[in-house]
């Protein structure tokens, strides 16, 4: 039986009395080599789960930082296959760290869901997050992923009704829910909305799988606040921005 790296990662964090740290990087930014080094640094710095953001030409759910990173990676010709090849190298070095392939559905559809699932399994990936594949459309991919031992990470928005949260959890209990903190696009924000903690409590009460909150998270204080109401927090734009500016993610990962 295949180890459930995602459940284990959340369990480990919980045993240590802290929320799990989910880190997003745009693969290929500033270069593929720097992405690989940055993932090693993230894991050394305490990241529990790595989201491999695969650059797409039309990133309509992303804020300025991740868009700019995606365009730069695409300019260098970085593809989904490059990201999967990097995943395989990361898997060889880090056998326990869950890898989530994070992108827009067209990249997967274009490769072919079955071919993608086989390649992702071979690379040692654990899950897929397709930004534009909501509950109503996800079965066409999920049904193909499952036989390959892969799961999906559903997005939960501020306006997702609780009944729909419960529906979204069905069939992916081996994963985690990605709770979007704000209506909008990705990007660091100084303040998280005050109603967020109630919302996280309500979601956590409704499902038995781990939940992690992201969009706008960049500081230790925000992560700690989320950690009191969720099983994990997700940081993306702040890491991508720093990596672009300094070329490295050495040292403290949160401001």
């Amino acid at each position, binding site marked *: 039986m295949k180890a459930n790296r995602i459940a284990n990662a959340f369990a480990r964090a919980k045993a240590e009395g802290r929320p799990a740290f989910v880190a997003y990087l745009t693969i290929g930014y500033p270069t593929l080599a720097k992405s690989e080094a940055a993932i090693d640094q993230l894991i050394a710095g305490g990241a529990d789960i790595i989201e491999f953001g695969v650059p*797409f*030409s*039309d*990133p*309509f*759910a992303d804020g300025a930082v991740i*868009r700019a990173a995606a*365009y730069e990676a*695409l300019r260098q010709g970085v*593809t*989904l*296959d490059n990201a999967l090849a990097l995943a395989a190298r990361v898997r060889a070095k880090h056998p326990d760290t869950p890898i989530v392939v994070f992108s*827009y*559905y*067209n*990249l*997967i*559809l*274009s*490769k072919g869901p079955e071919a993608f699932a086989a390649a992702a399994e071979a690379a040692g990936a654990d899950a897929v997050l397709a*930004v*534009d*594949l*909501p*509950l*109503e*459309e996800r079965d066409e991919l999920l049904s193909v992923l499952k036989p390959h031992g892969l799961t999906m990470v*559903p*997005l*939960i*928005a*501020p*306006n*997702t*009704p609780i009944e*729909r949260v419960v529906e979204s959890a069905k069939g992916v209990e081996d994963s985690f829910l990605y709770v*979007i903190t704000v*209506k*909008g*696009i990705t990007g660091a924000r100084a303040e998280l909305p005050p109603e967020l903690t109630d919302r996280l409590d309500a979601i956590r009460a409704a499902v038995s799988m781990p939940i992690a909150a992201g969009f706008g998270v960049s500081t230790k204080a925000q992560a700690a606040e989320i950690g009191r109401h969720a099983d994990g927090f997700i940081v993306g734009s702040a890491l991508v921005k720093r990596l672009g500016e300094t070329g490295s993610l050495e040292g403290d990962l949160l401001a």
Partner: protein
Amino acid sequence: MKTHYGTYGGQYVAETLMKPLADMAVAYDEAKADPAFKREFDEILRDYVGRESPLTVCRRLSAHLGGAQIVLKREDLNHTGAHKVNNTIGQALLARRMGKKRLIAETGAGMHGVATATVAALFGMPCEVYMGAIDVKRQAPNVARMEMLGAKVHAVEEGSATLKDAMNEAIRDWVTNCDDTFYVIGTVAGPAPYPEMVRDFQSVIGVEARRQCLEKFGRLPDQAIACVGGGSNAMGLFAGFIDDADVRLVGVEAGGKGLATGEHAASINGGRLGVLHGAKTMLLQTDDGNILDTYSVSAGLDYPGVGPEHCHLHDTGRAEYSVINDDEAVAAFDALCRFEGIIPALESSHALAEAIKRAPSLPKDTILLVNLSGRGDKDMENIMKWKESRRSASGSSAKSEG
């Protein structure tokens, strides 16, 4: 709500938009069932847009071609100069009904932006329009019109700086402001319920044209021809004839410099299955699944996708989709100017070019109904530039041959 057309369509959007889309679908179904909504829509189309739009028989052009009769459905005579306003009125009425305070839109050639800015002024709603920076330059008169009408125009600099990038930016605005903002999509693309809703609002074109053909000719046309970028004018025309199995439905895609050159915007003829902007549809994309830049002399057809229902009509064979290149479209533009005294939009010139191609080999009693979806005033500068570049290109090749 109809969400899928065969394997096409759906709601491939970020989770945050699922609730606004569901609310919109419910509101639209209620509006459709409310006679007062239809009454107000029809009244605005009559008193403000100037519908119905006439049918014009192209007597001199048809005689010159020596075959079938070419008949135009004159959407160019609508207020704002194109078919786009039919849809923006419908969506603005729905937005008002839903209590939304603000309209946003994407635009390529600017016609949909102008049509949205127009209804925003009519209904007293603030309006922001996203437009690719390249389109802002090549369609400057329409930018001025939108601003004159009180809309704020955002030039989108990133990506390919054209229509698809404008749509990305409009989606980002909507996902951030969905509580009070209504996103007015300009074509039969996007997530459900947009393809159905936009087709319904545009179906006035086909419904009128069918009745007018029966009144004028005592019979239906043999073929109904329309250009297809996203495909709203074509779907509007086709909607009137979809149940008339004897009427051939012909969509015309923009072949740009020719399909073989890769510089075109023909998603059905030159693309493959993908997902973009909320729908599964035929897309122009790289082998890796990134979206390609498109090219056409006409900015309004310059979009890498196409409405999902068109893909389905293509699969089932109910409609056929051909390709017209830049030079054929410009020749058709010239022909309509000289033979009929009508300056067509470059988009509509593609449909006309297909009719001009087909007419000579068809009997004189054949009726080719062409949707003249817009007027060409906006294209003057582009067409002069295009001709100038062709003249200098042929001049230099003549020199090198000499």
